Structure formats: C-alpha cells, structure tokens
C-alpha cells in the first residue's frame, strides 16, 4: 500500500534539513508492484516487489552532485545528503546551470484506483487462468504478463517546491501461439477493473488463428495498415530522437532549424499533454515543474520540443515540465504523447488498399540514422497480405528499414478510434494509420 504524502514529505524534509548545499532537491519514489507471468498456458513466474528509492541533487554555486539510496534510516538519509554535497564539491562549475526551479502551482490529476492498489495475487492469477483456459479451448498456447502497481512520487527542493502524486497502473499483455502463427494484444489502465482479460484473449486468439500457415512475400514497397501497437512505436522514436531539447539544441533532431516549417503531412498532429483526461495523468516532472501541453507537430508544421530547467536555461525559455531524474543525461523526454485521430474505420482503411500489408505490431526496432528517424525492425504477431481491399493471406514476418519521418509524410488515412499504450517513458495514445509505400527490406522464415 502507498506510504502516503506525509511520510514521503517527512523523508524529503529530513534530507533537506541535513543538506548543507546552496540548493537541494529530493526525489522520493515508492513502488509496490506485482507481476504474474505466464507461458505455455500456465503461471511460471509470479513476483512482487516493494521499494522506496531516494535521489538527492545538491547544488553548490554552479556545481552539482547527485546521490541515491534506498536505505531509510536516519543515518542513511543524512548520509545521502552528505554524499551529494561531497560530490558537488568535487565538481567543476557548469555555467549552463541556472537554478533549481521555484515553486509553481500544480494541478492535481486523478491517477489512483483503490481497486488496483488492493489487487491480490489470487485475483491476478484468476485473470491469467481465464486467459490460459481460453487458449486451451482454442487449441493455442498462451504467454503473457499481468502487472498491477502502485507508485508514489514526491519532489521537494530547498526553494519551496513540494509536489506529490500517486498513481496505479494495471498493464496486461498476451501472445497466443500456434506452430506457424501468433497474435498479440495489450491493455493499460489506471483501474484494474477496466482490464477485460477475456476480451484480450479473444483479440489475440483471433489474430493467432488467422496468422497460421503464412505464405512468403517478397520484400519491397507496400502500402500498409499499421495497427495502434505499431503506430505507438513511431511515436517512441520521435520522442527520444527528436522531440527533446537536448537533441534539438545539438542539431541532432530533424526539428532543429525547422520550426515553423512543414515537415510532415497536413493530416499529422502530435503533442504531449500530461493532464489530458484520456492519458495516465502525470501532473509534474522529476524537478517538480508542472507539465505543460507541448505541440510538436500541428497540421504537419514543426512547432516545438520539450524542456527541463537546464535546457530551458540554455535558450532563455521555460521548462515545459519534462525533466528526467537528476543524473540522467538524455535530456527532457515527452511522457504523454498523442497522435491526432482521423475519421476512418479500420474497415474503411482496409477497403481502400489495392495491394498492401496489414501490420499488427513491430518488434526490435532500432534507429539506423537518427536525423532521418530511419528505423529498422521486424513485424510480429499477425502480418497479413491485403489484396483488393480484403485480407487474403497471412504472411511470414518481414524486416523493414523505413524513415518514420518520411512515413508521416505519406499518411493517407488515420483511424477514428485511439488506444493507450506503454511508451518509452509514460504512455502514448494513437490511432491506426494507412501509410503509402512502406519499405520492407527483408524477410524471415516464420
């Protein structure tokens, strides 16, 4: 169960009191997490963890040191503050560092479910058992994972910032398999009551059975329908390669030098909003700065990137509330991304394809050329040939090497429905897409 705001504040206050730095920041994370994992249609791993982690950033002039501990004794809390100060004293001045942030009003956001927080091992096992039973009835094999977690975060600093947030997540996925095919489904929600294990199993089983006995298809350029699982991957790469101020300022982002210019199709808009009603709310970042809505692409035009206080200071602008914990060197990263929905149903998108490929999800995607957002990866868990507007055969999985940036200039249709998915950090909400001329560069044997 969560420790509660006052306990986390007490920990933070003790550390702030012990610190001799000019400025001090304390992050306290508390996490109770349980995961029931299954394979070959039974539970083979079943785990639970409890942790409280503390990170302290000490600032002396323009010198910064960071120390962390998970030991909560008075001696340890004093020790982590002293360690951060000692590290700072050994530092060199960082002239780009301005200050820790000052307090700013934070909108509270509901992201906690009592039902999720109290979910038991038996309840998780029952959901998994139902999924495994559905698999057995369909003569397929189930694998997957069902996780429920309760997390708390408190950020406090010596300038008066104190921000507290608690959230629960229920996160479930399943892969259904036969010898020659597989299907996948996942869901994420704040309230575990919104997770329907049977519907999840039905979706994955249907895909699995339809993907059996795939034919080989020559790689090449094909129009594609990308399901939401695959579209979420596109946003992940944009997030960490291009939409953060670090890459932007270092000229490593395709947005660098191109704000205000058209960089994608007019039917593409992408933004980040940690307080939207249809995400898993995230009201502030790891510096305690309130989240701002940030437009990355509006009707195809490049608009902006996310900032933390450090990178905002280098441009004399303001943090957008996307800072990562001190000590991480990736720079600010989006955490609640959205891709604008369109008006098409998946049936309409399918009917519009003369010859193409239906892609359920991508796997093992990696950047080949970051500036072009050129990515390689595999299709997985349900890939189908489309001919004259109908799915005519399952196909063996293909490798693609495709610029996601170019692909977003080739979006012909966007789905009217959206779904929520885990992202590289946080979550993203995306529709399905029909994209013209996707480059498949290879194929595998299954």
């Amino acid at each position, binding site marked *: 169960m969560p420790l509660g705001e006052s306990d986390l504040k007490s920990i933070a206050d003790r550390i702030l009191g012990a610190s001799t730095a000019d400025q001090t920041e304390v992050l306290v994370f508390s996490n109770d997490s349980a995961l029931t*994992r299954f394979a070959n249609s039974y539970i083979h791993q079943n785990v639970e963890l409890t942790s409280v982690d503390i990170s302290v950033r000490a600032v002396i002039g323009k010198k910064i040191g960071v120390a*962390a501990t998970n030991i909560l004794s008075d001696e340890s809390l004093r020790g982590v503050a002293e360690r951060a100060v000692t590290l700072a004293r050994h530092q060199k001045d960082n002239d780009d560092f301005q200050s820790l942030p000052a307090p700013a009003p934070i909108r509270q956001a509901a992201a906690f479910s009592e039902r999720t927080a109290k979910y038991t091992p038996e309840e998780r096992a029952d959901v998994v058992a139902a999924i495994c039973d559905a698999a057995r009835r369909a003569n397929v094999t189930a694998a997957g994972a069902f996780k429920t977690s309760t997390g708390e975060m408190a950020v406090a600093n010596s300038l008066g910032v104190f921000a507290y947030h608690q959230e629960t997540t229920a996160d479930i996925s399943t892969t259904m398999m036969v010898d020659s095919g597989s299907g996948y489904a996942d869901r994420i929600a704040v309230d575990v009551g919104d997770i329907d294990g049977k519907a999840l199993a039905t979706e994955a089983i249907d895909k699995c059975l339809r993907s059996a006995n795939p034919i080989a298809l020559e790689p090449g350029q094909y129009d594609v329908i990308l399901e939401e699982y695959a579209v979420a991957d596109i946003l992940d790469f944009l997030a960490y390669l291009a939409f953060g101020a670090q890459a932007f300022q270092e000229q*490593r982002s395709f947005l660098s030098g191109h704000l205000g210019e058209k960089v994608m199709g007019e039917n593409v808009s992408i933004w980040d909003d940690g307080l939207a009603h249809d995400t898993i709310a995230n009201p502030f970042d790891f510096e305690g700065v309130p989240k701002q809505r940030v437009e990355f692409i509006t009707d195809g035009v490049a608009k902006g990137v996310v900032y933390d206080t450090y990178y905002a200071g280098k441009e004399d602008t303001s943090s957008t509330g996307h800072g990562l914990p001190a000590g991480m060197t990736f720079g600010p990263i989006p955490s609640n991304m959205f891709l604008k929905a369109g008006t098409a149903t998946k049936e309409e998108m399918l009917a519009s394809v003369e010859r193409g490929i239906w892609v359920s999800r991508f796997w093992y995607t990696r950047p080949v050329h*970051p500036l072009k957002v050129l990515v390689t990866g595999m299709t997985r868990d349900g890939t189908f040939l489309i001919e004259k507007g109908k799915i005519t055969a399952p196909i063996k999985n293909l490798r693609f090497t495709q610029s996601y940036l170019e692909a977003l200039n080739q979006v012909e249709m966007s789905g009217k429905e959206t779904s929520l998915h885990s992202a590289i950090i946080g979550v993203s909400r995306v529709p399905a897409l029909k994209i013209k001329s996707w480059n498949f560069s290879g194929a595998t044997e299954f």
Partner: protein
Amino acid sequence: MRELAVRALDTAGSQGASYADARVVARKSESITVRNQNVEALTADESLGFGVRVIVDGYWGFASSQRMTLEEADRVAAQAVRIARASARATGPKADIGPQEVHKDTYRTAIVKDPFAISLDDKIALLLQANEAMNKVKGIVMAESNVYCQRENKLFASSEGSFIEQELVETGCGLEATAVGEGEVQRRSYPNSVGRHQGTEGWEFIERYDLPGNAGRVAEEAAALLFAKPCPPGTTTIILDGSQLALQIHESCGHAIELDRVLGTEAAFAGTSFLTTDKLGTFRYGSDVVNLTMDAITPGGLGTFGYDDEGVPAQSMPAVRNGIFVGYLMSRETAAGLGLRSNGAMRASDWNRIPLIRMTNVSLEPGEWTLEELIADTKDGIYMETNRSWSIDDRRLNFQFGTEVAREIKNGKLGDLMKNATYTGMTPQFWASCDAICNRDHWVVWGTPNCGKGQPEQVAHTGHGAAPARFRNIRVGL
C-alpha cells in the same frame, strides 16, 4: 544479512515451501558523465534489499523488500508462499529443479586497483582531458565520456544448505564524439559503443583503455564520416571488428542458446529461439571454424562470477563446436527437463528480481590469422567497426546491424572511409559463411552492460570474447 536470510528460509519452509532461496544484495556504484566541458552527471548510489524465491506444491513464487528486519523477512517469505499458491490457479507442469546443489563458499573479483579508491578529482580530470581533445576537432558538436564502477556484495542461501557470499566488482568507461554537418549526424565511440565497455576488473581497466590518448583520433574519425561516401548496396565479403562481432554473437547466438527462450517461457516478451531441442548435437550452426563457448570463469569478463543466483558454480562449456550446436545456457529447472545439470547461467539484476537465464561470457574462440593477414587475403570487401544499430527477429534468425564506420577493402588493402554501413542476414547462413578468425592477439572480452530481458524487465551485464572475423557473400548497404 546472514540472520535475515536464514529467517526467511525458515519461515518459507514452515509455511509449506518445498524449496526456498534467499538473496541479499548490497550494491554501491559511482558514475561520472562529462558532456563537452560540463560534468553533467556525478552520481553515487547505494542499494540494499533481499528477495525470497519459493516452490510450493510445484509452483513458483517470489517476493522482495528493502526493509532489512527479521519481521520483514517473515512477511516477505510468507508473501512468496502466498504468491506461489496463487500460481497454482493456472495449472501447469510442476517445477522440478533437479538434483541438489549444496555449496558453502566465498568468491571475490580479483582486482588490482580499487576503483572506489581513485579520487573523484582524478576521474573528472581524466574525462575532461578526453573531452577537450574531442572538442578541439572541427565539426564535433558533442563530446561525451564516462566512467562507471560498482561493487556488489551478495549472499545466497538455500533450503538445500547452500551458503555463498560473493563480492563482485565492475569497472567501465567510454567516450563518444558526435559530428553534425552536411545534413548528417555521425558518431564514433571508443572502446565500444552503447555507452561504454565494462569488465569485472578494477581501475586498471580504465588505465588500459587510455581515454585521453584515443579521444582525438575518435573525434577526427567522426568528423571525417560527415564527408565519407555511403556504404553502397550489394553483396560482398565483410570483416567485422571484435566489438561489432561481440554484439553479433550476443544477438544471434547468446540469446538463441538461452534454454528458457527455447522452451517458450520468454515468448511473451523477447520471443523464442530457432535452436529447438531437436537440434542439440546435430544442427550446423556455422562453418567448421566457428567455436562458441559459454564461460563464466574468464578473468575480467563482464559475465564472470563465482556462483550464479541459484548457487551453481561458474563453469565453461561449449555452445558450438566446429560449427555444430552442442550446448545451451541453462537453469536448474530447464536443465532437469533435458536430463542435464545446470551450467550456472541464472542471474538476477538486483535483489528485487528473480534470476533468469542470462549470458555469461559467450565467446567466439580465436583463430589463426592476424588482422593484417586477413585484410591482405581479402580481394574485395568491407571492414566494419563499432556497432551503431542492431535488430533481430524474435526467433533470432533475421538480423540487421549497422556500424559507425567502414572501410573499403580493395585488393587486400584498406581504402576509402564509408558511412552508414549496414549488413543483414539469417543467423545460420551468416555463420556458415565465416571462413577466417583472427588470433588471440586480437581477442578481447567485450562487455555488454545493457542486455534487457524478462518481465518485469531486468538489465544484465554480459561478456563476449571476439577477434575480427571474415564472412562471405553478405548483403550490405540497406
């Protein structure tokens, strides 16, 4: 630590566990990252906690905590038993971990210089010196260098009577120069990419790699890549340097021989393996010159330890002999299923994770060639160095890799610099095309400190010994 572990085992047993083990892990780490002339991260972390793993009526359960009290040991052990009983609600085969493993022992990484004894000032000065050399090169927009060290003290105790204490030390370093221009972003890394190279050694590891001495060269290569010609598409002979080959081994062999993947227990996330059990002992994985070994005993290897996290001693065994697939990385449970004994490949990334089958040091045994001889013997081809991108399918067959730099080989000589080099293939065909491997003078155990696996995800540190090697008829330039 000892008393807490014993208490947890006793409680688990009294609650109905037929098997229990407890791991107590204390870790201390220090990390310094310098970007350009700013020390962007200077962190010192400590962590302490314990995990209890049980089998109850044939089903697994695990719970963990950072509260180091006897009362918490009781609670966690009882919770692990409760979770195991819940596992029985989705019935399946009962866990069988095979014959007992009983060891009472200690192990310590052999180091020369304690990395924690080196002053922070000296560490920072080293990295600033390296970055200064990189920043001097025209075209470099970002110079980054880092050092990392960790010390882990862990205790393993089991209901079978094992009691093992280990102290494991790791040290790592790396630098990266990023050049921007000509519509390009190019990076060169040293000694390895993906952040750093790491080993189970002390500060002597950092000294060996002389970051300041190599920084200028690396930056100049990054800047030169902006103007280099792209790797042309085609089918040709390639020679891979040791660090790139290490990642090739990791992805196409190391993961493929994890027996849990083969048996389907990782299907939900990372996938399965094409090396099904019917292939053991007979399948031709590569050419006759290909010999791959799974070993946890090579000094300095990132996958080297004394005992795994099931209390099984570190050992060395072949995975591929003269091209034939002969061995898996195993746990007690998976080995028992094949009528074998575990070869000690189970490791957990932390106290709050269960052990999974992880690579130890999965290495390609060296051959007979010098690199100079190998290049001179290659009429036409491409020499590729230092990984830049990697991707492989979920059975470990179709892969595509990219390297930071490549050089044309023409008539046995290294020629033009090339950028954006990529190559692709299918694992058995690729390894079948290997016809020459460099000798032990070129052999390094490369450290991969970022191998992800499992749900919840864990990051393992693995090692791969490799010397440059040649492969024929490979598709390049995608």
